[in-house]
Protein backbone atom coordinates (compact mmCIF):
# COMPACT_ATOMS: atom_id res chain seq x y z
CA UNK A 1 0.00 0.00 0.00
CA UNK A 2 2.78 2.39 0.93
CA UNK A 3 4.56 1.79 -2.38
CA UNK A 4 1.61 3.42 -4.12
CA UNK A 5 2.29 6.67 -2.25
CA UNK A 6 6.04 6.83 -2.89
CA UNK A 7 5.95 9.80 -5.33
CA UNK A 8 4.29 12.07 -2.79
CA UNK A 9 6.31 10.74 0.14
CA UNK A 10 9.42 11.72 -1.79
CA UNK A 11 8.37 15.34 -1.40
CA UNK A 12 6.67 15.39 1.99
CA UNK A 13 9.39 13.66 3.97
CA UNK A 14 11.78 16.65 3.67
CA UNK A 15 8.82 19.02 3.85
CA UNK A 16 7.87 17.47 7.18
CA UNK A 17 11.44 17.64 8.44
CA UNK A 18 11.70 21.41 7.84
CA UNK A 19 9.08 22.58 10.39
CA UNK A 20 10.28 19.94 12.85
CA UNK A 21 13.78 21.47 12.76
CA UNK A 22 12.23 24.85 13.40
CA UNK A 23 10.02 23.54 16.18
CA UNK A 24 12.77 21.76 18.12
CA UNK A 25 15.31 24.49 17.43
CA UNK A 26 18.22 22.43 18.58
CA UNK A 27 21.46 22.12 16.64
CA UNK A 28 22.03 18.43 17.16
CA UNK A 29 18.40 17.33 16.88
CA UNK A 30 17.80 19.27 13.69
CA UNK A 31 20.89 17.66 12.20
CA UNK A 32 19.55 14.23 13.18
CA UNK A 33 16.15 14.97 11.66
CA UNK A 34 17.69 16.22 8.43
CA UNK A 35 19.98 13.21 8.16
CA UNK A 36 17.07 10.86 8.79
CA UNK A 37 14.75 12.62 6.35
CA UNK A 38 17.40 12.77 3.66
CA UNK A 39 18.21 9.09 4.14
CA UNK A 40 14.54 8.15 3.84
CA UNK A 41 14.25 10.31 0.72
CA UNK A 42 17.22 8.45 -0.78
CA UNK A 43 15.57 5.12 -0.01
CA UNK A 44 12.33 6.27 -1.64
CA UNK A 45 14.23 7.45 -4.71
CA UNK A 46 15.96 4.09 -5.02
CA UNK A 47 12.62 2.28 -4.74
CA UNK A 48 11.08 4.60 -7.33
CA UNK A 49 13.90 3.94 -9.79
CA UNK A 50 13.51 0.23 -9.21
CA UNK A 51 9.76 0.47 -9.81
CA UNK A 52 10.08 2.53 -12.98
CA UNK A 53 12.69 0.18 -14.39
CA UNK A 54 10.49 -2.82 -13.83
CA UNK A 55 6.90 -1.69 -14.11
CA UNK A 56 7.13 1.54 -16.11
CA UNK A 57 5.71 4.97 -15.42
CA UNK A 58 4.19 5.72 -12.02
CA UNK A 59 1.40 8.24 -11.85
CA UNK A 60 -0.03 9.69 -8.64
CA UNK A 61 -3.08 11.93 -8.38
CA UNK A 62 -2.90 14.53 -5.66
CA UNK A 63 -6.08 14.95 -3.64
CA UNK A 64 -7.73 12.22 -5.67
CA UNK A 65 -8.38 14.55 -8.62
CA UNK A 66 -7.95 12.88 -11.99
CA UNK A 67 -4.99 13.86 -14.15
CA UNK A 68 -5.66 16.73 -16.54
CA UNK A 69 -7.59 18.67 -13.86
CA UNK A 70 -5.76 17.80 -10.69
CA UNK A 71 -2.04 17.83 -10.03
CA UNK A 72 -0.37 14.69 -11.20
CA UNK A 73 2.99 13.38 -10.00
CA UNK A 74 4.58 11.36 -12.70
CA UNK A 75 7.76 9.36 -12.31
CA UNK A 76 9.47 7.82 -15.30
CA UNK A 77 13.05 6.67 -15.82
CA UNK A 78 14.33 10.19 -16.44
CA UNK A 79 13.20 11.80 -13.22
CA UNK A 80 13.73 8.69 -11.11
CA UNK A 81 17.37 8.88 -12.20
CA UNK A 82 17.59 12.56 -11.20
CA UNK A 83 15.82 11.91 -7.89
CA UNK A 84 18.36 9.23 -7.05
CA UNK A 85 21.39 11.43 -7.59
CA UNK A 86 19.89 14.45 -5.80
CA UNK A 87 18.94 12.49 -2.70
CA UNK A 88 22.24 10.58 -2.66
CA UNK A 89 24.25 13.79 -2.78
CA UNK A 90 22.02 15.42 -0.19
CA UNK A 91 22.46 12.55 2.28
CA UNK A 92 26.23 12.53 1.90
CA UNK A 93 26.46 16.27 2.35
CA UNK A 94 24.29 16.23 5.48
CA UNK A 95 26.80 13.89 7.14
CA UNK A 96 29.57 16.30 6.22
CA UNK A 97 27.54 19.31 7.32
CA UNK A 98 27.62 18.70 11.06
CA UNK A 99 31.20 19.84 11.66
CA UNK A 100 31.48 22.15 8.70
CA UNK A 101 28.35 24.12 9.51
CA UNK A 102 29.35 24.48 13.17
CA UNK A 103 32.45 26.26 11.94
CA UNK A 104 30.96 28.41 9.21
CA UNK A 105 27.54 29.50 10.45
CA UNK A 106 26.57 31.42 13.59
CA UNK A 107 25.44 28.93 16.22
CA UNK A 108 21.95 30.37 16.70
CA UNK A 109 21.26 30.09 12.97
CA UNK A 110 22.18 26.42 12.64
CA UNK A 111 18.69 24.95 13.27
CA UNK A 112 17.36 27.46 10.74
CA UNK A 113 20.03 26.30 8.31
CA UNK A 114 18.83 22.72 8.49
CA UNK A 115 15.18 23.78 8.16
CA UNK A 116 15.98 25.74 5.00
CA UNK A 117 18.20 22.93 3.70
CA UNK A 118 15.25 20.57 3.98
CA UNK A 119 12.98 23.05 2.18
CA UNK A 120 15.58 23.33 -0.57
CA UNK A 121 15.70 19.56 -0.92
CA UNK A 122 11.90 19.44 -0.92
CA UNK A 123 11.79 22.03 -3.70
CA UNK A 124 14.30 20.16 -5.86
CA UNK A 125 12.52 16.85 -5.42
CA UNK A 126 9.16 18.48 -6.09
CA UNK A 127 10.38 20.00 -9.35
CA UNK A 128 11.67 16.62 -10.41
CA UNK A 129 8.71 14.50 -9.42
CA UNK A 130 5.81 16.60 -10.64
CA UNK A 131 3.94 16.19 -13.90
CA UNK A 132 2.23 19.56 -13.75
CA UNK A 133 3.93 22.66 -15.12
CA UNK A 134 2.48 25.11 -12.60
CA UNK A 135 3.34 22.83 -9.72
CA UNK A 136 6.84 22.68 -11.17
CA UNK A 137 7.04 26.47 -11.07
CA UNK A 138 5.92 26.55 -7.43
CA UNK A 139 8.50 23.99 -6.36
CA UNK A 140 11.15 25.79 -8.39
CA UNK A 141 10.39 28.91 -6.37
CA UNK A 142 10.55 26.95 -3.11
CA UNK A 143 14.00 25.68 -4.00
CA UNK A 144 15.15 29.05 -5.35
CA UNK A 145 14.01 31.05 -2.32
CA UNK A 146 15.63 28.57 0.03
CA UNK A 147 18.85 28.64 -1.95
CA UNK A 148 19.01 32.44 -1.64
CA UNK A 149 18.65 31.99 2.11
CA UNK A 150 21.23 29.22 2.25
CA UNK A 151 23.77 31.44 0.52
CA UNK A 152 22.99 34.50 2.63
CA UNK A 153 23.21 32.54 5.90
CA UNK A 154 27.02 32.47 5.62
CA UNK A 155 29.09 34.48 8.09
CA UNK A 156 30.84 36.14 5.18
CA UNK A 157 29.03 39.42 4.55
CA UNK A 158 29.85 39.31 0.84
CA UNK A 159 27.42 36.39 0.69
CA UNK A 160 24.61 38.90 1.14
CA UNK A 161 25.35 40.73 -2.10
CA UNK A 162 26.01 37.45 -3.89
CA UNK A 163 22.66 36.15 -2.72
CA UNK A 164 20.95 39.39 -3.71
CA UNK A 165 22.42 39.18 -7.19
CA UNK A 166 21.24 35.60 -7.48
CA UNK A 167 17.80 36.60 -6.19
CA UNK A 168 17.50 39.25 -8.87
CA UNK A 169 18.47 37.03 -11.79
CA UNK A 170 16.70 34.01 -10.36
CA UNK A 171 13.49 36.00 -10.08
CA UNK A 172 13.78 37.19 -13.66
CA UNK A 173 14.30 33.59 -14.75
CA UNK A 174 11.32 32.41 -12.72
CA UNK A 175 9.12 35.19 -14.14
CA UNK A 176 10.07 34.19 -17.66
CA UNK A 177 9.17 30.59 -16.94
CA UNK A 178 5.86 31.69 -15.43
CA UNK A 179 5.06 33.90 -18.44
CA UNK A 180 5.77 30.95 -20.69
CA UNK A 181 3.52 28.67 -18.64
CA UNK A 182 0.81 31.33 -18.86
CA UNK A 183 1.14 31.54 -22.64
CA UNK A 184 1.02 27.77 -23.01
CA UNK A 185 -2.05 27.69 -20.79
CA UNK A 186 -3.75 30.36 -22.85
CA UNK A 187 -3.21 28.29 -25.97
CA UNK A 188 -4.13 24.86 -24.65
CA UNK A 189 -6.14 25.38 -21.46
CA UNK A 190 -4.16 22.81 -19.55
CA UNK A 191 -1.22 22.66 -17.17
CA UNK A 192 -0.65 18.93 -17.17
CA UNK A 193 2.54 17.99 -19.03
CA UNK A 194 1.06 14.96 -20.75
CA UNK A 195 -2.00 16.89 -21.77
CA UNK A 196 0.12 19.81 -23.00
CA UNK A 197 2.19 17.46 -25.13
CA UNK A 198 -1.02 16.08 -26.63
CA UNK A 199 -2.58 19.46 -27.39
CA UNK A 200 0.44 21.47 -28.53
CA UNK A 201 0.91 19.90 -31.99
CA UNK A 202 -2.57 21.16 -32.94
CA UNK A 203 -1.47 24.78 -32.41
CA UNK A 204 2.09 24.47 -33.69
CA UNK A 205 3.45 27.37 -35.70
CA UNK A 206 1.43 29.75 -33.57
CA UNK A 207 3.25 32.92 -32.43
CA UNK A 208 2.07 32.52 -28.84
CA UNK A 209 3.58 29.06 -28.62
CA UNK A 210 6.78 30.32 -30.18
CA UNK A 211 7.09 33.15 -27.68
CA UNK A 212 6.32 30.69 -24.88
CA UNK A 213 9.20 28.63 -26.18
CA UNK A 214 11.51 31.66 -26.20
CA UNK A 215 10.58 32.76 -22.68
CA UNK A 216 11.02 29.24 -21.43
CA UNK A 217 14.44 28.76 -23.00
CA UNK A 218 15.76 32.04 -21.60
CA UNK A 219 14.16 31.49 -18.18
CA UNK A 220 15.60 28.02 -17.74
CA UNK A 221 18.96 29.13 -19.10
CA UNK A 222 19.18 31.72 -16.33
CA UNK A 223 18.41 29.06 -13.72
CA UNK A 224 20.89 26.78 -15.41
CA UNK A 225 23.60 29.48 -15.55
CA UNK A 226 24.20 28.85 -19.22
CA UNK A 227 26.66 31.33 -20.73
CA UNK A 228 25.95 34.28 -21.20
CA UNK A 229 23.39 34.17 -18.36
CA UNK A 230 25.81 32.78 -15.79
CA UNK A 231 26.77 35.97 -13.97
CA UNK A 232 25.00 35.11 -10.73
CA UNK A 233 26.83 31.84 -10.28
CA UNK A 234 30.49 32.58 -9.41
CA UNK A 235 29.76 34.89 -6.48
CA UNK A 236 26.98 32.70 -5.14
CA UNK A 237 29.20 29.61 -5.07
CA UNK A 238 32.22 31.49 -3.74
CA UNK A 239 30.70 33.16 -0.71
CA UNK A 240 28.15 30.54 0.33
CA UNK A 241 29.09 28.19 3.17
CA UNK A 242 31.11 25.20 1.87
CA UNK A 243 28.26 22.75 2.42
CA UNK A 244 25.86 24.98 0.52
CA UNK A 245 28.26 25.44 -2.39
CA UNK A 246 28.65 21.69 -2.61
CA UNK A 247 24.92 21.04 -2.48
CA UNK A 248 23.81 23.79 -4.86
CA UNK A 249 26.61 23.14 -7.33
CA UNK A 250 25.86 19.46 -7.54
CA UNK A 251 22.06 19.52 -7.51
CA UNK A 252 20.38 22.86 -8.31
CA UNK A 253 21.79 23.28 -11.80
CA UNK A 254 21.21 19.58 -12.45
CA UNK A 255 17.54 19.90 -11.62
CA UNK A 256 17.33 23.02 -13.80
CA UNK A 257 18.86 20.93 -16.56
CA UNK A 258 16.27 18.24 -15.98
CA UNK A 259 13.55 20.91 -16.31
CA UNK A 260 15.08 21.90 -19.64
CA UNK A 261 15.00 18.30 -20.87
CA UNK A 262 11.47 17.78 -19.61
CA UNK A 263 10.11 20.86 -21.33
CA UNK A 264 12.03 20.56 -24.59
CA UNK A 265 11.41 16.86 -25.11
CA UNK A 266 8.34 15.75 -23.15
CA UNK A 267 6.21 18.91 -23.27
CA UNK A 268 7.12 20.94 -26.34
CA UNK A 269 8.37 18.00 -28.32
CA UNK A 270 11.41 17.43 -30.52
CA UNK A 271 9.63 18.73 -33.61
CA UNK A 272 8.98 22.14 -32.16
CA UNK A 273 12.21 22.54 -30.19
CA UNK A 274 14.70 21.21 -32.67
CA UNK A 275 13.11 21.53 -36.09
CA UNK A 276 11.06 24.70 -36.12
CA UNK A 277 12.93 26.60 -33.39
CA UNK A 278 16.49 25.55 -34.27
CA UNK A 279 17.45 24.86 -30.68
CA UNK A 280 20.31 22.64 -31.85
CA UNK A 281 22.29 25.50 -33.35
CA UNK A 282 21.71 27.78 -30.37
CA UNK A 283 22.68 25.15 -27.84
CA UNK A 284 25.67 24.00 -29.85
CA UNK A 285 27.08 27.53 -29.95
CA UNK A 286 26.23 28.36 -26.34
CA UNK A 287 27.46 25.00 -25.08
CA UNK A 288 30.86 25.40 -26.72
CA UNK A 289 31.03 29.03 -25.58
CA UNK A 290 30.23 27.93 -22.01
CA UNK A 291 32.91 25.24 -22.08
CA UNK A 292 35.61 27.65 -23.19
CA UNK A 293 34.53 30.73 -21.24
CA UNK A 294 34.13 28.72 -18.03
CA UNK A 295 37.36 26.75 -18.35
CA UNK A 296 39.43 29.77 -19.33
CA UNK A 297 38.04 31.91 -16.54
CA UNK A 298 38.68 29.08 -14.08
CA UNK A 299 42.40 29.13 -14.92
CA UNK A 300 42.78 32.73 -13.76
CA UNK A 301 41.07 32.45 -10.37
CA UNK A 302 42.99 32.78 -7.13
CA UNK A 303 40.12 31.56 -5.02
CA UNK A 304 39.70 27.82 -5.49
CA UNK A 305 36.00 27.97 -4.76
CA UNK A 306 35.56 30.53 -7.51
CA UNK A 307 37.68 28.37 -9.77
CA UNK A 308 35.32 25.43 -9.22
CA UNK A 309 32.37 27.74 -9.81
CA UNK A 310 33.68 28.69 -13.25
CA UNK A 311 34.42 25.05 -13.89
CA UNK A 312 30.73 24.33 -13.16
CA UNK A 313 29.77 26.81 -15.85
CA UNK A 314 31.95 24.86 -18.28
CA UNK A 315 30.41 21.55 -17.22
CA UNK A 316 26.92 22.92 -17.85
CA UNK A 317 28.22 23.65 -21.34
CA UNK A 318 29.03 19.96 -21.81
CA UNK A 319 25.53 18.95 -20.80
CA UNK A 320 23.87 21.50 -23.08
CA UNK A 321 26.16 20.41 -25.90
CA UNK A 322 24.94 16.85 -25.41
CA UNK A 323 21.34 18.02 -25.77
CA UNK A 324 22.10 20.02 -28.90
CA UNK A 325 22.72 16.82 -30.89
CA UNK A 326 19.17 15.64 -30.09
CA UNK A 327 20.27 12.05 -30.63
CA UNK A 328 20.15 9.10 -28.25
CA UNK A 329 23.92 9.17 -27.77
CA UNK A 330 23.94 12.93 -27.21
CA UNK A 331 21.17 12.75 -24.63
CA UNK A 332 22.81 9.75 -23.00
CA UNK A 333 25.99 11.79 -22.68
CA UNK A 334 24.05 14.71 -21.21
CA UNK A 335 22.26 12.51 -18.68
CA UNK A 336 25.47 10.69 -17.78
CA UNK A 337 27.21 13.98 -17.26
CA UNK A 338 24.33 15.17 -15.11
CA UNK A 339 24.89 12.21 -12.81
CA UNK A 340 28.67 12.17 -13.02
CA UNK A 341 29.20 15.87 -12.67
CA UNK A 342 27.03 15.88 -9.55
CA UNK A 343 29.40 13.29 -8.07
CA UNK A 344 32.53 15.13 -9.21
CA UNK A 345 31.53 18.60 -8.07
CA UNK A 346 30.13 17.43 -4.74
CA UNK A 347 33.40 15.57 -4.05
CA UNK A 348 35.58 18.53 -5.04
CA UNK A 349 33.53 21.05 -3.07
CA UNK A 350 33.55 18.80 -0.01
CA UNK A 351 37.33 18.41 -0.23
CA UNK A 352 37.51 22.17 -0.48
CA UNK A 353 35.17 22.39 2.51
CA UNK A 354 37.79 20.43 4.49
CA UNK A 355 40.45 22.98 3.51
CA UNK A 356 38.12 25.82 4.41
CA UNK A 357 37.43 24.17 7.76
CA UNK A 358 41.12 24.33 8.62
CA UNK A 359 42.15 27.63 7.08
CA UNK A 360 38.97 29.69 6.95
CA UNK A 361 39.67 30.55 3.36
CA UNK A 362 40.08 28.85 0.02
CA UNK A 363 42.60 31.10 -1.69
CA UNK A 364 45.37 29.57 -3.72
CA UNK A 365 48.27 30.95 -1.64
CA UNK A 366 46.75 29.61 1.59
CA UNK A 367 47.18 26.02 0.54
CA UNK A 368 50.90 26.03 -0.24
CA UNK A 369 52.31 22.74 0.87
CA UNK A 370 49.20 21.45 2.64
CA UNK A 371 49.42 18.20 0.70
CA UNK A 372 51.71 16.90 3.41
CA UNK A 373 49.65 18.15 6.32
CA UNK A 374 46.24 17.08 5.01
CA UNK A 375 47.16 14.14 2.77
CA UNK A 376 43.71 12.53 2.78
CA UNK A 377 41.90 15.72 1.87
CA UNK A 378 44.30 16.63 -0.88
CA UNK A 379 44.44 13.13 -2.33
CA UNK A 380 40.65 13.29 -2.51
CA UNK A 381 40.90 16.61 -4.30
CA UNK A 382 43.40 15.25 -6.80
CA UNK A 383 41.28 12.20 -7.63
CA UNK A 384 38.23 14.43 -7.95
CA UNK A 385 40.25 16.68 -10.23
CA UNK A 386 41.30 13.75 -12.41
CA UNK A 387 37.68 12.82 -12.69
CA UNK A 388 36.83 16.37 -13.73
CA UNK A 389 39.49 16.22 -16.43
CA UNK A 390 38.11 12.90 -17.63
CA UNK A 391 40.95 10.50 -16.98
CA UNK A 392 40.00 6.85 -17.69
CA UNK A 393 38.62 4.83 -14.76
CA UNK A 394 36.79 7.86 -13.41
CA UNK A 395 33.23 8.97 -14.06
CA UNK A 396 34.42 12.06 -15.92
CA UNK A 397 35.85 9.81 -18.59
CA UNK A 398 32.57 7.97 -19.13
CA UNK A 399 30.55 11.09 -19.83
CA UNK A 400 33.19 12.69 -22.05
CA UNK A 401 33.55 9.44 -23.97
CA UNK A 402 29.85 9.43 -24.79
CA UNK A 403 29.93 13.12 -25.62
CA UNK A 404 32.78 12.71 -28.10
CA UNK A 405 31.00 9.67 -29.49
CA UNK A 406 27.83 11.71 -30.00
CA UNK A 407 29.78 14.47 -31.72
CA UNK A 408 31.41 11.96 -34.08
CA UNK A 409 28.08 10.30 -34.77
CA UNK A 410 26.73 13.68 -35.81
CA UNK A 411 29.79 14.11 -38.00
CA UNK A 412 30.99 17.12 -36.09
CA UNK A 413 34.69 16.43 -35.81
CA UNK A 414 35.52 19.98 -34.84
CA UNK A 415 33.17 19.77 -31.87
CA UNK A 416 34.78 16.51 -30.78
CA UNK A 417 38.18 18.18 -31.03
CA UNK A 418 36.90 21.14 -29.03
CA UNK A 419 35.70 18.84 -26.23
CA UNK A 420 39.15 17.27 -26.02
CA UNK A 421 40.88 20.66 -26.17
CA UNK A 422 38.72 21.91 -23.31
CA UNK A 423 39.86 18.94 -21.24
CA UNK A 424 43.37 20.32 -21.54
CA UNK A 425 42.18 23.59 -20.04
CA UNK A 426 40.77 21.56 -17.15
CA UNK A 427 44.19 19.98 -16.68
CA UNK A 428 45.67 23.47 -16.35
CA UNK A 429 43.43 24.72 -13.59
CA UNK A 430 43.42 21.47 -11.62
CA UNK A 431 47.20 21.36 -11.92
CA UNK A 432 47.47 24.81 -10.35
CA UNK A 433 45.86 23.45 -7.19
CA UNK A 434 47.96 20.30 -7.24
CA UNK A 435 51.12 22.34 -7.67
CA UNK A 436 50.20 24.69 -4.83
CA UNK A 437 49.27 21.87 -2.48
CA UNK A 438 52.10 19.44 -3.14
CA UNK A 439 55.03 21.30 -4.68
CA UNK A 440 55.13 24.75 -3.10
CA UNK A 441 57.03 25.49 0.10
CA UNK A 442 54.55 25.74 2.97
CA UNK A 443 53.93 29.16 4.44
CA UNK A 444 54.63 29.24 8.15
CA UNK A 445 51.17 29.06 9.59
CA UNK A 446 50.62 30.95 12.83
CA UNK A 447 48.22 28.32 14.09
CA UNK A 448 49.35 24.83 14.88
CA UNK A 449 45.84 23.58 14.21
CA UNK A 450 46.48 22.34 10.70
CA UNK A 451 46.17 18.59 10.81
CA UNK A 452 43.62 16.45 9.04
CA UNK A 453 39.92 17.28 9.45
CA UNK A 454 37.49 15.22 11.59
CA UNK A 455 36.49 11.81 10.30
CA UNK A 456 32.86 12.86 9.89
CA UNK A 457 34.06 15.20 7.14
CA UNK A 458 36.62 12.92 5.53
CA UNK A 459 34.30 9.94 5.25
CA UNK A 460 31.59 11.61 3.13
CA UNK A 461 34.26 13.21 0.94
CA UNK A 462 35.89 9.87 0.37
CA UNK A 463 32.56 8.16 -0.13
CA UNK A 464 31.99 10.49 -3.08
CA UNK A 465 35.53 9.98 -4.36
CA UNK A 466 35.06 6.24 -4.24
CA UNK A 467 31.74 6.69 -6.05
CA UNK A 468 33.69 8.66 -8.66
CA UNK A 469 36.00 5.71 -9.20
CA UNK A 470 33.33 3.06 -8.83
CA UNK A 471 30.94 4.50 -11.42
CA UNK A 472 33.94 5.06 -13.65
CA UNK A 473 34.65 1.32 -13.65
CA UNK A 474 31.31 -0.39 -13.08
CA UNK A 475 28.95 1.59 -15.26
CA UNK A 476 26.06 -0.87 -15.12
CA UNK A 477 23.85 1.57 -13.19
CA UNK A 478 24.57 4.77 -15.08
CA UNK A 479 25.13 3.44 -18.58
CA UNK A 480 22.30 1.00 -17.95
CA UNK A 481 19.78 3.70 -17.13
CA UNK A 482 20.91 6.76 -19.10
CA UNK A 483 20.37 5.37 -22.66
CA UNK A 484 16.93 4.09 -21.64
CA UNK A 485 16.10 7.52 -20.26
CA UNK A 486 17.41 9.16 -23.43
CA UNK A 487 15.27 6.90 -25.61
CA UNK A 488 12.30 7.62 -23.39
CA UNK A 489 12.80 11.37 -23.81
CA UNK A 490 13.08 11.06 -27.57
CA UNK A 491 9.95 8.92 -27.56
CA UNK A 492 11.64 5.93 -29.13
CA UNK A 493 10.50 3.27 -26.68
CA UNK A 494 6.91 2.62 -25.80
Amino acid at each position, binding site marked *: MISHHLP*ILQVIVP*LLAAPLCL*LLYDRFLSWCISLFASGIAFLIAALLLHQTLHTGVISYE*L*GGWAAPWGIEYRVDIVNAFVLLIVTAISSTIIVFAKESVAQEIYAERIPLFYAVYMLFLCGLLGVTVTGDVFNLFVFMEISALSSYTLIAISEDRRALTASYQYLFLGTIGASFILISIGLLYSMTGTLNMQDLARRLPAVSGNRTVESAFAFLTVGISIKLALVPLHLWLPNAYTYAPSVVSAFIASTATKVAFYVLLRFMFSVLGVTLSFQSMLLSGIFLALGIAAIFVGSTAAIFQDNIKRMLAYSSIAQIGYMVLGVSFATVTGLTAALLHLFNHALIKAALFLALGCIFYRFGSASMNQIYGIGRRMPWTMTAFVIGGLSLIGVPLTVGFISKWYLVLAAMEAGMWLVAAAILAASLLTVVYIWRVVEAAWFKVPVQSPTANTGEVPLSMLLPTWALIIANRYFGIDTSLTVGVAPQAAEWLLGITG
Partner: protein
Amino acid sequence: MPNPIQPNLVLRVAGKMLIPIILMFALYVQFHGETGPGGGFQAGVIFTSAFILYALVFGIGPARAVATDRVLRVLAAFGVLLYIGVGIASLLSGGNFLDYDVLGENAIEGQHLGIFLIELGVGFTVASVMIIIFFAFAERGARP
Protein backbone atom coordinates in the same frame (compact mmCIF):
# COMPACT_ATOMS: atom_id res chain seq x y z
CA MET B 1 14.68 49.61 21.14
CA PRO B 2 13.31 52.19 18.68
CA ASN B 3 10.88 54.67 20.18
CA PRO B 4 7.21 54.31 19.40
CA ILE B 5 5.53 57.18 17.63
CA GLN B 6 5.18 60.12 20.04
CA PRO B 7 2.18 59.48 22.26
CA ASN B 8 -0.60 60.86 20.20
CA LEU B 9 -4.06 60.74 21.69
CA VAL B 10 -5.89 60.44 18.38
CA LEU B 11 -3.70 57.56 17.21
CA ARG B 12 -4.01 55.70 20.48
CA VAL B 13 -7.77 56.00 20.69
CA ALA B 14 -8.32 55.24 17.01
CA GLY B 15 -5.88 52.34 17.20
CA LYS B 16 -7.61 50.85 20.19
CA MET B 17 -10.92 51.07 18.39
CA LEU B 18 -9.66 49.67 15.10
CA ILE B 19 -7.44 46.82 16.22
CA PRO B 20 -10.20 44.54 17.58
CA ILE B 21 -12.28 45.15 14.46
CA ILE B 22 -9.35 44.28 12.19
CA LEU B 23 -8.70 41.12 14.17
CA MET B 24 -12.37 40.14 13.94
CA PHE B 25 -12.33 40.81 10.21
CA ALA B 26 -9.26 38.60 9.84
CA LEU B 27 -11.07 35.78 11.58
CA TYR B 28 -14.13 36.35 9.38
CA VAL B 29 -12.00 36.10 6.24
CA GLN B 30 -10.31 33.02 7.66
CA PHE B 31 -13.47 31.08 8.44
CA HIS B 32 -15.46 32.09 5.38
CA GLY B 33 -12.64 31.32 3.01
CA GLU B 34 -14.29 28.26 1.52
CA THR B 35 -17.61 29.97 0.75
CA GLY B 36 -16.58 33.57 0.00
CA PRO B 37 -13.53 35.48 -1.14
CA GLY B 38 -10.61 35.09 1.20
CA GLY B 39 -8.86 32.26 2.94
CA GLY B 40 -5.86 31.58 5.10
CA PHE B 41 -3.35 33.73 3.28
CA GLN B 42 -5.47 36.88 3.22
CA ALA B 43 -6.62 36.33 6.78
CA GLY B 44 -3.08 35.89 7.99
CA VAL B 45 -1.98 39.14 6.40
CA ILE B 46 -4.99 41.07 7.77
CA PHE B 47 -4.30 39.66 11.23
CA THR B 48 -0.70 40.82 10.98
CA SER B 49 -1.75 44.30 9.89
CA ALA B 50 -3.61 44.71 13.21
CA PHE B 51 -0.50 43.57 14.99
CA ILE B 52 1.71 45.99 13.11
CA LEU B 53 -0.69 48.84 13.84
CA TYR B 54 -0.43 48.00 17.53
CA ALA B 55 3.37 47.92 17.43
CA LEU B 56 3.49 51.25 15.57
CA VAL B 57 1.22 53.04 18.03
CA PHE B 58 2.18 51.45 21.35
CA GLY B 59 5.77 50.50 20.65
CA ILE B 60 7.60 47.31 19.88
CA GLY B 61 8.16 46.40 23.54
CA PRO B 62 4.52 45.68 24.41
CA ALA B 63 4.01 43.91 21.09
CA ARG B 64 7.02 41.71 21.80
CA ALA B 65 5.55 40.76 25.17
CA VAL B 66 2.93 38.75 23.27
CA ALA B 67 4.88 37.60 20.25
CA THR B 68 8.27 36.39 21.36
CA ASP B 69 10.62 34.77 18.86
CA ARG B 70 9.83 31.38 20.31
CA VAL B 71 6.06 31.73 20.07
CA LEU B 72 6.26 32.95 16.49
CA ARG B 73 8.59 30.14 15.50
CA VAL B 74 6.36 27.50 17.04
CA LEU B 75 3.26 28.95 15.36
CA ALA B 76 4.97 29.16 11.97
CA ALA B 77 6.07 25.53 12.21
CA PHE B 78 2.68 24.48 13.57
CA GLY B 79 0.85 25.86 10.54
CA VAL B 80 2.96 23.86 8.11
CA LEU B 81 2.69 20.75 10.25
CA LEU B 82 -1.10 21.12 10.37
CA TYR B 83 -1.18 21.31 6.58
CA ILE B 84 1.03 18.25 6.10
CA GLY B 85 -0.82 16.53 8.95
CA VAL B 86 -4.11 16.78 7.04
CA GLY B 87 -2.37 15.29 4.01
CA ILE B 88 -0.93 12.44 6.02
CA ALA B 89 -4.26 11.84 7.76
CA SER B 90 -5.88 11.37 4.36
CA LEU B 91 -3.05 9.02 3.38
CA LEU B 92 -3.66 6.97 6.49
CA SER B 93 -7.40 6.90 5.92
CA GLY B 94 -6.84 5.20 2.60
CA GLY B 95 -7.04 8.15 0.20
CA ASN B 96 -4.35 9.95 -1.74
CA PHE B 97 -2.38 12.84 -0.23
CA LEU B 98 -4.77 15.75 0.54
CA ASP B 99 -7.81 13.77 -0.59
CA TYR B 100 -10.31 15.32 1.82
CA ASP B 101 -13.12 12.94 0.87
CA VAL B 102 -11.92 10.29 3.27
CA LEU B 103 -11.60 12.61 6.27
CA GLY B 104 -15.29 12.85 7.20
CA GLU B 105 -18.21 10.48 7.34
CA ASN B 106 -19.15 11.42 3.80
CA ALA B 107 -17.34 13.24 1.04
CA ILE B 108 -18.99 16.64 1.63
CA GLU B 109 -18.21 16.63 5.33
CA GLY B 110 -14.67 15.49 4.58
CA GLN B 111 -14.13 18.29 2.06
CA HIS B 112 -15.40 20.85 4.61
CA LEU B 113 -13.13 19.61 7.36
CA GLY B 114 -10.12 19.24 5.09
CA ILE B 115 -10.22 22.71 3.56
CA PHE B 116 -10.99 24.24 6.96
CA LEU B 117 -7.89 22.71 8.57
CA ILE B 118 -5.66 23.45 5.58
CA GLU B 119 -6.68 27.11 5.56
CA LEU B 120 -6.17 27.29 9.30
CA GLY B 121 -2.63 26.01 8.85
CA VAL B 122 -1.98 28.55 6.12
CA GLY B 123 -3.41 31.32 8.33
CA PHE B 124 -1.16 30.42 11.28
CA THR B 125 1.99 30.29 9.20
CA VAL B 126 1.30 33.39 7.12
CA ALA B 127 0.40 35.51 10.16
CA SER B 128 3.40 34.43 12.21
CA VAL B 129 5.88 34.70 9.34
CA MET B 130 4.57 38.17 8.45
CA ILE B 131 5.05 39.25 12.07
CA ILE B 132 8.56 37.76 12.05
CA ILE B 133 9.35 39.76 8.91
CA PHE B 134 7.96 42.93 10.48
CA PHE B 135 10.08 42.51 13.60
CA ALA B 136 13.14 41.68 11.53
CA PHE B 137 12.86 45.11 9.93
CA ALA B 138 11.60 47.03 12.97
CA GLU B 139 14.32 45.77 15.27
CA ARG B 140 17.21 46.27 12.87
CA GLY B 141 20.19 47.59 14.75
CA ALA B 142 18.42 47.20 18.07
CA ARG B 143 19.64 43.64 18.55
CA PRO B 144 23.27 42.53 18.34
